[in-house]
């Protein structure tokens, strides 16, 4: 295991594309999170100009809401697409440069090759999870001060949910890259599906207002994104009559994990039967 990770790390250590995309993810994420309150309050101000009784400004960076809010912004599809593209590039590179062949020729088993990539996904998800947890903690601390120790523990389920989202989404990307073998095509198809096709399906099959949309809940990308369904903004609840999520549902976690498990199964099956 350690040996496989060591090999994977050598492959990316001086790979600029990897670090640029990795950095971009955090730039987008940080910008998104830090601008979110400003943007929402800007909208509130606009609305308030026409309202006799003004809406109160929102505050999203306070404990314990900060956990859920950061998890929500970090798992938006426009943000998650970055680590997914990283994963697609890492696997399709192996086909483009034929290094997957060379790895097997040199004495890596096909299973080891796949395990090393899956370990990489796990490691990236863990590292991003830790960075995000630390980030949320400091944002929360900065805004609410050190008030209550228990507030910290309340956030962990949401960070766990984010970790599952990220890991499963990267498995989807890995699956797409492995099956298509071509970097450009895999990125195009994956992005198209994630950002356009699923939202269109949602639009076509959307349920009447306030009813649970059943088909949509089970679509793979949506299942990942909806682990943290809404940001924790109390005003939203009042405005839209939404039932505010206050925990990560275990059942909701199982859906993307089931997709990921099936995809991993297919990848192993194909790897042992197809020519390299």
């Amino acid at each position: 295991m350690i040996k496989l990770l060591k090999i994977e790390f050598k492959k990316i250590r001086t790979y600029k594309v990897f670090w640029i995309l990795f950095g971009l993810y955090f730039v987008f994420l940080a910008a998104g999170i830090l601008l979110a309150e400003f943007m929402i309050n800007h909208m509130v101000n606009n609305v308030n100009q026409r309202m006799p009784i003004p809406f109160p400004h929102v505050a999203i960076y306070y404990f314990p809401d900060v956990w859920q809010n950061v998890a929500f912004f970090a798992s938006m599809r426009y943000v998650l697409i970055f680590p997914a593209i990283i994963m697609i590039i890492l696997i399709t590179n192996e086909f483009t440069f034929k290094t997957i062949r060379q790895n097997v020729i040199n004495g890596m088993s096909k299973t080891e090759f796949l395990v090393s990539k899956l370990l990489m996904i796990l490691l990236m998800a863990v590292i991003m999870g830790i960075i995000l947890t630390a980030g949320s903690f400091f944002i929360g601390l900065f805004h609410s001060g050190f008030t209550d120790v228990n507030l910290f523990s309340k956030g962990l389920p949401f960070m766990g949910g984010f970790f599952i989202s990220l890991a499963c989404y990267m498995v989807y990307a890995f699956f797409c890259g492995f099956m298509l073998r071509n970097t450009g095509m895999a990125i195009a198809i994956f992005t198209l599906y994630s950002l356009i096709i699923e939202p269109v399906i949602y639009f076509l099959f959307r349920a009447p207002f306030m009813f649970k949309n059943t088909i949509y809940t089970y679509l793979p990308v949506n299942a990942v994104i909806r682990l943290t369904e809404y940001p924790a903004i109390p005003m939203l609840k009042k405005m839209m009559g939404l039932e505010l999520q206050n925990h990560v549902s275990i059942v909701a976690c199982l859906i993307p994990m089931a997709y990921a498990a099936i995809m991993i199964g297919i990848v192993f099956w194909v790897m042992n039967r197809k020519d390299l």
Partner: protein
Amino acid sequence: MQVETILHVEKLSKRFGKIRAVNQLSFEVGRGQVFGILGPNGSGKTTTLSMLLDLIPPDDGTFSWFGQPPSKDSRKRIGSVIESPNFFPYLDAVTNLKIVADIKDKPYDDIDEVLQLSGLYERRFSKFRTFSFGMRQRLALASALLGKPEVMILDEPTNGLDPQGIAQIRDLISLVASRGTTILLASHLLDEVQKICSYVVVLRKGVMLFSGNVREVLAVSDSIEMASSDMPVLAAAIAEFPGFLASTAINGILQVHFDRPVVTSEINTFLYIKGIVLSHLSEKKRSLEQHFLELLQDTP
């Protein structure tokens, strides 16, 4: 002398759709042999090697390395260059070789040595994508040499190289072979196989045509063409020439084979003494390539 069997191949077969890429191929490679697989393009050489390295699952047949069923551990004892050099273009030579060493469970100690052997030591920190074609091929050879493998598999190692590059690669192969490393070399160049290998199998359309000692399989016998006014007398007379093997009459010209190098003046004198005046006498050397083509055509 009993030689330890390194590779045993039995009735190996692979189809791609309707095409039989490799058909019932069997052969054996002993330790220390320099073994050639010779055949034109598309004869199944690369497919065979790919199966031996677990890249392609065979449809039928078995093979064993070092007397054991194939596994990743047997592959770690083999250094291979298959078709093109496969490395990460954005990594330098040393990092690429370290990845190979990691996979093979070999220490990094050899890296400097193989880089020096392949003449890439000065460029060891250059990215692979900056390498010329010849350098790439030599890096592939360097990576195959890592960890002192017991066997080297080389698939068309000089393909596409300039004459200088070809000479460098062949010298390197000869050096490795002289250290006792078993070498399995696939090539479509008869000349290459003849220069480097001691044993050979000849493939055509996935079927083995010949196998055995290179000198026996690829022996080239030159012939001498001659003609005179009375052909039957000539044929009878030349049969008495020392070293005579066989003669065939084609279009009024007698083609004669000998078991030793023969000079035309020798024959002229010999026949003149017997009272035969030749109207035609010429040496006919077959090129190796021509011989190879004949070898492939001879069989149904």
